[in-house]
């Protein structure tokens, strides 16, 4: 007992870090917990273990439709915003542009505007232009929200790598397109993957814009929102939340694994 202080050095910061992690994990961990609880009511004490909520989730066509809508919108938004972000990042980092500062600030505005204001102003414009609400209007609003994120990620990736690498490729005989394809793209690739993942996640989880700008086709957050009002539907929603969590965990782990393998595999002397 006397010796223990030399083994265990109390580190205030480490203790704090553990407490902090507890704070951010604890509430979230109750979601999967109650998804296995054999009761409609989200209260303690816990009842028996059950998988029926997962069964209910699997057999809910409404939920599947919403999920499918969200994936459709998310994929489209992720790809478009990453392409636009890549072009814009290249413009900003590789060319001397007049008014670069104000232009970039303008593109970043969606980051510093409350989402609800973005949502209602788009709603007003769309209704005044008499465009029908649909998943397209939701997707467009998500695109606005995601472009700044894509651009920030890709700008930092582009700035991080040495411009003389591109010059070296030109010097060794490649034209602008092949230089992009053989040098810029592979080096920026981790940034592209990060941008795709982040923007998909943002769109997939976005509620306020979708709430104002969708019509009869719900996205997943809209479906969750409307289900939260019905206590009987909640356990199945928790099961869905837990499933999304597990799937995204595997997706992120897999993409990290691919990225690391990719770095190792690529440097073969393939031409």
């Amino acid at each position: 007992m006397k010796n223990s202080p030399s083994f265990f050095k109390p580190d205030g910061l480490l203790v704090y870090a553990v407490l902090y992690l507890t704070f951010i994990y604890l509430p979230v961990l109750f979601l999967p917990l109650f998804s296995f609880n054999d009761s409609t009511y989200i209260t303690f004490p816990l009842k028996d273990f059950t998988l029926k909520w997962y069964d209910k989730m699997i057999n809910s066509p409404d939920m599947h439709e919403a999920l499918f809508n969200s994936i459709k919108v998310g994929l489209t938004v992720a790809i478009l915003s990453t392409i636009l972000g890549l072009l814009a990042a290249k413009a900003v980092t590789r060319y001397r542009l007049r008014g670069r500062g104000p232009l970039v600030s303008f593109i970043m505005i969606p980051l510093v505007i409350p989402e609800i204001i973005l949502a209602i102003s788009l709603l007003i414009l769309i209704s005044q232009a008499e465009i029908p609400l649909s998943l397209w209007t939701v997707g467009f609003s998500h695109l606005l929200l995601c472009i700044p994120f894509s651009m920030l990620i890709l700008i930092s990736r582009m700035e991080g790598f040495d411009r003389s690498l591109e010059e070296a490729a030109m010097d060794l005989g490649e034209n602008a397109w092949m230089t992009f394809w053989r040098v810029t793209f592979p080096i920026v690739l981790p940034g592209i993957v990060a941008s795709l993942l982040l923007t998909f996640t943002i769109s997939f989880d976005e509620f306020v814009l979708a709430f104002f700008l969708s019509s009869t086709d719900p996205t997943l957050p809209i479906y969750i929102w409307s289900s939260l009002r019905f206590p009987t539907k909640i356990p199945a929603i928790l099961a869905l939340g837990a499933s999304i969590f597990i799937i995204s965990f595997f997706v992120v782990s897999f993409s990290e694994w691919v990225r690391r393998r990719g770095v190792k595999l690529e440097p073969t002397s393939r031409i």
Partner: protein
Amino acid sequence: MKSESLRGYSLLSPTLLAMVLGLAMPLVVLITLSFWIQDYLDFIRTFSLKNYTDFFQKPIYIKILFKSIRMSGLVTIATVLLAYPMAYFIAFRVKHNKLVWLILITVPFWTSYLLRVFAWKIMLGYNGVINSGLLSLGILSEPLEFLLYNPTSVVITLAHAWAAFAILPIYVSLEKIDRSLLEASRDLGENVFMTFMRVTLPLSLPGVIAASLLVFIPTVGDYVTPALVGGPRGIMIGNIIQSMFGKALNWPLGAAISVMSMITVTLMVCLFIWGTHNFRKRVA
């Protein structure tokens, strides 16, 4: 040279086009609408200040706007203060596996935002985790009612929901600090605490500012959290705006409230940046 910058602009133009269509034009329309008047299902399209006089004459709007700002301010302070030591820990204490810690922090945010907010309903509700826990331990004989549906529950929930947004920018700014600057400060006679105050803190201030804005601005307009855990006493300006576009059906007034909220938030942000700028000067 000319053709080169032309290529730059043409690369930028699709993004700019999207932003003009989806950002600049809607904001112009929003401002225009705020000067119109609702007439059942249609608008009276003549210039009028009625919505703005309504906004200033009925105290409820200004009261809720300032309440929202106060609550978001509290959320921001709490989130940043809680996040700073954590970011500091990862940046300076964790030697290997920094990425693991960063992932560990973002993992809870991989579930739906709505469900994260809902989780606090489970925590704080009448039959929730805290109440049933305290009851079964015999500390309480009856569940506490004041835990949920008030401004405090909104602040706690938001502080939890936005934690990662505060940690990441602060971590980045701490990580960028050249370690030899800290050694130089020690070498010049400052102790650990004063080194932190005179070197680490001022240099990480950009991260703190970014974190504050990243939390403050979206939470002022948040609609989900007050609706789920706020109850009548916890409503915020976002709920008022939403109701104008929903049940209350008064789009122009909703637009005017939005415009006023935007102006107020912008002023607060400018004030904040000006304040931190002065603070930074004083420390330097």
